[in-house]
């Protein structure tokens, strides 16, 4: 290390060092931890709750993809989670195809829906983007409410079967269903991870940090944001489909704005821009709500609201973000690395943000 303790100027080692080994280790570590946790989950908590956690986890990752890496907050993501849930449910009820197929159709439907909405939304950013997406989310809500032929309106769409190649254990027992459905969630999570760690993801991060400069470099900012939006909607759709099949019905709650709010809460709680923080937030919120529901406590909203306030006031980076920052600080002894979780919170393309600092070893590849 060449850094002098008193110097405020960042310098980076040029040759591979323990830092890059650590980086690679962590790159593998997070997916591994998440994967093992997913496998163990139904042994530790009640299987239907475990399935809920997995579905919400993927949903939170889809939000983080937009919020943490695209820098825009979608406040209407329930539209994709919910419309996919309805489409999945409708397909499963009416065609009797195995549930993974129904879920894929549902997710595709959500992506198709996201194209026109995204085209209109991505022209704005910040609070305007959040408001526009919220408005579209509410539109979907009222359409679902009125379209009672398909959605069942207020009563909901009942009797979604867990058709799975005639394997009765999966169709009847939530414990085995969990293992049949979890590959879908894992694939969705891996897709999110891959998107973030691709040249595309790095352009996205660049747009988050400095859209003008990315535009100046010749990237079509709107198109990148639109693609990210549609991909995110697809992930939300996958999660919504899993949720619908797991519960065996779809209700208006799935397209309600509170669902959009809940998933944002999970993402913020876990840590924006960490990708794996969302699942932690999802686990905490789902378990807490489940526990409070049967604990005879009469103010669930008060507790989740308080947690949110505490998180925003004390842990601005969320749970995982705080842990990562702590680990970073411990590792560098309070020097170096000013940003937490560098490996996960990807740097923008080198040419976008690099100014007068030396390149880090990743920065030599220009995004394609």
């Amino acid at each position, binding site marked *: 290390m060449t850094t002098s303790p008193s110097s405020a100027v960042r310098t980076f080692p040029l040759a591979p060092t323990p830092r890059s080994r650590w980086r690679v280790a962590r790159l593998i570590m997070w997916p591994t931890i998440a994967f093992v946790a997913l496998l163990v989950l139904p042994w530790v908590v009640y299987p239907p709750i475990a399935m809920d956690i997995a579905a919400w986890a993927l949903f939170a990752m889809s939000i983080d993809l937009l919020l943490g890496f695209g820098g825009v907050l979608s406040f209407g993501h329930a539209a994709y989670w919910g419309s996919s849930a309805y489409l999945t449910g409708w397909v499963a009820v009416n065609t009797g195809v195995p549930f993974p197929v129904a879920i894929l159709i549902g997710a595709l439907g959500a992506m198709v829906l996201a194209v026109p909405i995204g085209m209109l939304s991505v022209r704005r950013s910040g609070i305007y983007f959040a408001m526009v997406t919220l408005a579209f989310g509410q539109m979907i809500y009222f359409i679902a409410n009125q379209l009672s032929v398909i959605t069942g309106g207020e009563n909901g769409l009942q009797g979604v079967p867990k058709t799975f190649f005639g394997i009765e254990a999966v169709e009847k027992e939530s414990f085995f269903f969990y293992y049949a459905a979890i590959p879908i969630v894992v694939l969705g999570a891996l897709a999110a991870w891959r998107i973030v760690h691709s040249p595309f993801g790095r352009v996205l991060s660049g747009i988050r940090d400095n859209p003008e400069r990315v535009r100046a470099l010749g990237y079509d900012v709107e198109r990148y944001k639109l693609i990210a939006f549609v991909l995110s909607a697809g992930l939300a759709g996958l999660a919504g489909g899993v949720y619908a099949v797991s519960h065996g019905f779809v209700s208006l709650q799935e397209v309600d704005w509170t669902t959009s709010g809940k998933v944002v809460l999970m993402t913020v709680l876990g840590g924006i821009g960490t990708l794996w923080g969302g699942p932690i937030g999802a686990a905490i919120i789902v378990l807490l709500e489940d526990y409070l529901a*049967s604990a005879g406590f009469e103010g669930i909203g008060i507790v989740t609201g308080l947690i949110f306030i505490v998180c925003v006031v004390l842990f601005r980076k969320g749970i995982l973000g705080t842990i990562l920052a702590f680990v970073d600080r411990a590792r560098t002894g309070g020097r170096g690395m000013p940003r937490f979780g560098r490996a996960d919170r990807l740097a923008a393309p080198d040419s976008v943000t690099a100014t007068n600092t030396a390149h880090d070893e990743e920065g030599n590849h220009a995004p394609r």
Partner: protein
Amino acid sequence: MKSRTVPMIAVTFVSAAMLAGCAGGPPAQDGSALSDGKVVIGILNDQSGVYRDLSGPNSRVAVELAIADYEAKYGDEAVATDIEIITSDHQNKPDVANTQAQQMYDRRGADIILDVPTSSAALAVAEVAAAKKRLFIDVGAATMELTGAACNPYTFHWAYNTEMLAKGASGVVDNGGESWVIIYPDYAFGQGMNASFTASIEGAGGTVLESIATPFPNDNFSTFITRAAAQNPDVIGIMAAGGDLINFVKQYNQAGMQDQAALAVGLMFITDINSLGVEEFQGTTFTDAWYWDYDEQNREFADRFLQLTDARPTFAHAGNYSAAFQYLEAIQRAGTDDADAVIAELEGAKLEDLFLRNGEVRSDHSVVHDSYVARVKPAADVAEAWDYEEIISTIPAEEAFSPVNSACTM
């Protein structure tokens, strides 16, 4: 460093798991055996939201009274010697209701789930009951679907439904309220209520001048009130419930409509009258499934209830009492708490208690009983707290509910 992160994650997950308070794992072979010497009654309802007052924690009190009455009646001969109550909050969300119901049956050993207001939540629980083959008696929800297309052998619908609510309208027509304008929120419940009320009014010889759909939820009803008033009806029927109903009634009175047309409310609980004040509702007619001050038997129950809760029971509370009591009676007759044996005792049974007058369990598992056309008293006539209603007429059980639902196939 990795070694420090891993324990942290582990701690997060373990503490989260402890929060859950229940173990996971593959399904146990036996679950909770139905003949485990214990009857567990689960109450799943809204403990924190808009339906808290009309069901909520007080439903538990009603069930406790039912258990006390059952034990007093049978003493040492009681089959159900050890009765436990568990409760859960479904927050009016069907997905929460669904997982909570599964947990109640699977992990907390519930033999029966009671109450469950909110139609979508009730339908979600009915599905769980059918899958787990345990009883579910719905009291708090209104939907016809429970005993229609979504019916199943393990689900009973105890207190009321949308068509029964509409039967009161014919009583109003008989009392001179012949021309109606109906204002209804434009979603499944409101549309169902509009259809039921229109059929009931026309069946009794009245006319519906106009049915006006409003957005749901809605805050400002003034244009709809003006439009309804322009028709000059005898009666304006409002099918909104909860907060929308309160808003509507306030605006209706502010517009000075009380003198122009009588107000009929589709679904009203006595707690609605209590929270908004009897002045706001005076003269309003509605269908009531049960009223606490109807006779001595009801009053005695209401007094016990008042001592424990500082409130008079709604018909949903009385319905929960009745459902729990009749369930325990069925266990007594069957000699076991096995779900199928208890259902066999309930099916087709003629039941009598303070809630069920001329009660009968029909083949679609709708439990029919006498119901009442009620009118809210003028504020000047209110003698004591909760003395809000005057029963105009009784609708006999066979007329109060429409015929067995042909959409139901079990």
